[in-house]
């Protein structure tokens, strides 16, 4: 059964494959680990089809910088419920490196983290079937926020720094 995703607020079938799942011949849109990318960089560049890369929590996003335009997807891995480095990876990719492609959260991803992930800049989420139907609602868990956001899809109040709401509002 094809993997389902929550992407831009909608449940869709995944049109990407991981190299480990599909092999390099099959899929046109292929996600590589950083090691896989680095070890055969030239042949991946020569290949026809979209490329994505997924990062382990300890892998620095700067390593992708020279090749950033080659990727239309970057995924951050969350090995367990306490993992948090992906949130910083996402903000760095969006804010510092200006990555505009699909930013995906994979691994331990549940609806309770979605709001924070989206605000850091993730726009697609690999969720277990038990969570995916209810997950879109989690994107609007909070209708306000104190911090600036990287998610244009969330209609949130202006960030704290420009706040001028009267106390009686």
């Amino acid at each position, binding site marked *: 059964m094809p993997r389902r995703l929550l992407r831009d607020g909608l449940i869709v079938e995944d049109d990407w494959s991981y190299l480990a799942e599909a092999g390099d011949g099959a899929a046109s849109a292929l996600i590589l680990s950083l090691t896989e990318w680095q070890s055969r960089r030239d042949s991946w560049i020569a290949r026809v089809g979209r490329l994505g890369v997924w990062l382990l929590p300890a892998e620095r996003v700067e390593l992708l910088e020279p090749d950033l335009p080659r990727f239309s997807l970057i995924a951050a891995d969350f090995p367990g419920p306490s993992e*948090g480095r992906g*949130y*910083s990876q996402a903000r760095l990719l969006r804010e510092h490196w200006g990555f505009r492609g699909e930013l995906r959260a994979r691994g331990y991803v549940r609806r309770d983290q979605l709001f*924070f992930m989206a605000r850091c800049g993730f726009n697609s989420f690999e969720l277990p079937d038990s969570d995916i139907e209810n997950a879109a609602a989690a994107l609007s868990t909070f209708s306000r926020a*104190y911090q*600036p956001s990287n998610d244009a899809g969330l209609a949130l109040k202006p960030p*704290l*720094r420009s706040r001028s*709401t009267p106390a009686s509002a």
Partner: protein
Amino acid sequence: MYRYDVVDRTLVNERVAQFRDQTRRFLAGQLTEDEFRHLRLRNGLYIQRHAPMLRVAIPYGLLSSTQLRALGAIARRYDRGYGHFTTRQNIQFNWPKLEQVPDILAELAEVEMHAIQTSGNCIRNTTSDHLAGVTPEELEDPRPWCELIRQWSTFHPEFTYLPRKFKIAVTGAPKDRAASLVHDVGVHIVRGQSGELGFEILAGGGLGRTPIIGQVVREFLPREHLLTYLEAILRVYNLEGRRDNIHKARIKILVRSLGLEEFRRRVEAEWESSRGAGPRVDDGEIARLRGFFDPPPYRRLADTEPAEGQSTAFRAWYRYNTTAHKVPGYRAVYVSLKKPDVAPGDITDSQLELVADLAERYSFGEVRVTHTQNLLFADVQQDKAFELWQALEKAGLATPNIGTLTDMIACPGLDFCSLANAGSIDVAKHINERFDDYDYIYDLGEIEVKMSGCMNACGHHHVGHIGILGVDKSGEEWYQITIGGAAGADASLGHVIGPSVAKTEVPETIARLLDVYVEQRRPDERFLDTVRRLGVKPFKDRVYAAPVAA
């Protein structure tokens, strides 16, 4: 004090709804224990020895009378009629039922309170000086900055899953009453070279298994950069802090392993590259926040002293339990939660309500929680102090011991906490039984005794002038004693005097330490300074010279 607007109110209400749903899913078996643990901890809910424990945030220790009454009602309805104030200015309830916690949170939301991020690996409640705004020595009231940090850190999307907990303390006076040097980050309001106010930023302090005093990362930070600089520190920590070992995951370990210079270099580099996109502090916003902390309408009064004819009990209380105020005719008045037969920091539901009433009558309807687990009326007219004392005295809240030997800090210990190795509350009680002569206690002067039931150090034993740490020795409760620690601007870690002692020997051990002090002290020298001058040896020699007759 700060009042919620529609943004704050909406967020807190939505949090209640979120947590209600998470609790429902857990009780319905849709979330595992471990999954729910990560969620409940970010809402202050621990599963403890007897029952869940709910820690409620008191931002920088400030409470209104309305909030105190709500806490009293919660203590009565959902707990066993009391609460416990912590060293981080929060309050804990020890007996709530898990399924009722969403209702408690809803009641808290009604009075602009919550339990958001009071536990878990995230940015915790920001603490501050309990004398903020009233102490004569202050450069600037730190509370508007605390509120700014509170808002910025609440549901911060990037920093909600940190390697470990993260505590920030902010002070605006040279005397540090917030233990900022043993926080993950300390923010000090300081004056720059051309006279403008900004911040000194410290990082890497902390207690627990590996106590470390915080170090200065930046000597002067212009005020508009406060949040971007904090984000830079947190990002370096979030990405590089250890996640493989819970005991090495605090930022202090990262700072130590990189070295201060390298840590600073990384923070500065991150700040240089990210500050442009980050949340700059807006002058209008900080002015808005300042407005919430404007001085109350003080009357024009002259300073007065207690009259000669007034009772000695009142005069002792006035001397120890009140302190200087910047406005003539006013004093800041401590409510001692260190009555000898009560667990340090505990307060009953009816006491909470009484304090609420007294705050309205005598202190503009506000109360502060101190880092040392007492309460404070910040703005009391000196000529009303006697009336206030009488009311407090009747309720058991006027024990005249602030800053003295029996004003002990203690964690809940083995009686409540599932982490503890040993009891704290009964040791405090034994110490109180042994030292009940106030002439002697007053003669000893300023002395801080701090007690933790395990090496997690919630009772800050490392920075007690006398520190007491509960350890487990093959199933028995023993206590390791340290001396020479301090938590203020001259913070230092205590030195272990020698082998740990049995529970019954703790009071006698302390008595021997005090004997050495009384014999050796110079005029006006505090216990701490005598220890610093003489070193541990004479104290150690006395304690272990002869066996303690239990």
